[in-house]
């Protein structure tokens, strides 16, 4: 990283080798699919190489030097994550393979013992499939009911519906995104959590699109479960985190049985290991957890407020320019104070895949599809949307390339 007097993208861009790529007839890559996964800085890439070259070993068991080093590095990541999220007890940080697994862990290990017939689980219309399907499975199995909080025309949650659900007195859990992966809407999460606490319901927050982009202070949030993924925040794929309150984790049954999660195993019975290992059966993704620490270090050095401010500036710039493109419909709040660096849009009468194909020829990578949010697509009454999403290395020049490409689409389709 270079000096801090420059804009964030200028400071960090040279740390990302892939951004030098030329694609599609030698066009400079314009990577605007960061909500799907972010690129990785050289520091993270080097960390994984270093691990396999110099330290590779299984962890938590052997006493040899490499095992000790690997175990320590693995646990250092846990401590760094705890600090990054302002979590006091690092044993509340459980490593999983991603946000999806974190939510499934809660649905299985907590849900099955705490949600019964007649109870209600609440989710929202702007959830990713990973925060809908596990609750469908749970409620179908237990005979509980799954209810939704709908969104309004600005793509924001209609919290009066949450009040109605909570007023039944039957809500056991509310599962909600901190930031919508499609609309970029930032949930008024403290308000949601307060309402749920007042009504005695537990809250699970899907933070996959929040932790990478803004300061998240779990101690201050007062939720019960919080989930996110490493690969959306400069880290490797295959690593995610579930944070949960210690007293909940202690009372939950294990999610999977196997090595590492046990204290003593006998023919007919087993006692569980301490937290967090009780929920980390089998050899974990050691290498990727260890190199995730390099991503946390990178973001810590930048400062999450700077990340957020950079995205606010880019989103404002893009929204202004996009609002002038003929035939373009933008979904979501369209207000950078209430929106992350994600913009979903469609052209009137043009399918998102046609848009993505045309602009891909200019080297612009956006996502088109239902973004694993078909419930939301139904609500918007579209088959799919296009989504441009920004990150620390995104430049205004790249937004300009996007805008030029969108104008090309309008021209091809004679809008």
């Amino acid at each position, binding site marked *: 990283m270079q000096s801090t007097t420059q804009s964030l993208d200028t400071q960090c861009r040279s740390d990302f080798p892939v951004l030098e790529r030329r694609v599609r007839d030698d066009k400079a890559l314009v990577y605007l699919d960061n909500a799907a996964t972010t690129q990785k800085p050289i520091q993270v890439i080097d960390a994984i190489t270093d691990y396999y070259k110099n330290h590779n070993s299984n962890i938590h068991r052997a006493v040899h030097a490499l095992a000790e080093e690997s175990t320590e590095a693995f646990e250092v990541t846990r401590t760094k994550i705890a600090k990054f999220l302002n979590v006091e007890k690092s044993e509340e940080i459980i490593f999983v393979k991603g946000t999806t697994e974190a939510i499934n862990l809660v649905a299985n290990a907590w849900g099955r013992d705490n949600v019964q017939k007649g109870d209600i689980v609440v989710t929202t219309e702007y959830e990713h499939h990973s925060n809908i399907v596990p609750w469908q499975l749970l409620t179908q199995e237990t005979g509980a009911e799954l209810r939704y909080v709908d969104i309004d025309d600005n793509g924001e949650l209609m919290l009066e519906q949450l009040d109605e659900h909570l007023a039944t007195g039957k809500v056991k859990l509310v599962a909600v995104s901190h930031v919508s992966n499609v609309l970029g809407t930032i949930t008024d999460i403290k308000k949601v959590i307060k309402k749920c606490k007042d009504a005695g319901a537990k809250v699970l927050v899907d933070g996959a699109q929040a932790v990478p982009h803004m300061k998240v202070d779990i101690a201050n949030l007062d939720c019960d479960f919080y989930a996110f993924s490493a690969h959306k925040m400069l880290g490797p794929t295959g690593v995610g985190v579930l944070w949960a309150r210690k007293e909940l984790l202690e009372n939950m049954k294990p999610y999977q049985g196997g090595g590492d999660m046990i204290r003593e195993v006998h023919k007919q019975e087993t006692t569980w290991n301490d937290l967090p290992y009780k929920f980390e059966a089998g050899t974990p993704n050691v290498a990727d957890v260890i190199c995730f620490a390099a991503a946390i270090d990178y973001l810590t050095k930048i400062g999450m407020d700077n990340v957020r401010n950079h995205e606010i500036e880019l989103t404002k710039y893009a929204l202004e320019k996009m609002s002038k493109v003929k035939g373009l419909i933008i979904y979501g709040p369209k207000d950078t104070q209430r929106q992350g660096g994600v913009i979903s849009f469609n052209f009137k009468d043009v399918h998102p895949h046609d848009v993505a194909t045309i602009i891909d020829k200019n080297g612009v990578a956006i996502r088109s599809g239902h973004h694993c949010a078909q419930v939301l*697509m139904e609500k918007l009454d579209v088959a799919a949307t296009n989504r441009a999403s920004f990150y620390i290395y995104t430049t205004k020049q790249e937004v300009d390339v996007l805008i030029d490409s969108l104008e090309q689409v309008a021209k091809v389709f004679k809008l």
Partner: protein
Amino acid sequence: MSGDPIYTEMIIEYSRNPSNFGKIENPQIHRHDSNPLCGDSIDLYVNVDGTKITDVKFDGKGCAICMACTSVLTEMIQNKTLDEVKNFQKDELLAELGLEHLIKTSPVRIKCALLSLKALKYGIYSYFTEKMNDVKAAGNLKEEAASLY
């Protein structure tokens, strides 16, 4: 962007004004299919008299490539016999719109182009096996449909 290899005038025109767009009530052949990847979702309706196709319609949502290819497919099979349509090859359909290159250049978009043909082959397969109880006539349509992309 003149000379775009995909978005020709013809494809844009078909996507705006698809042929045979609509629904047939109680059709003899009905098949719904979708591409979960891109969200193309169509319903294909076919009526037959004996073994001859008398009416074809489709509705749904899809990209320009999907709409254009489905339109052309419905035009091409109108008034054909099921035996003729059974042997219909993907190259014939793609050639009609100048999209043969998609097989090599775009493994993603080829699915948009061939969704309707897949639906048709499955639809005829079900018609033979379920309504006519004629497994022999159905041949290997199911395998063919599955191997389109």
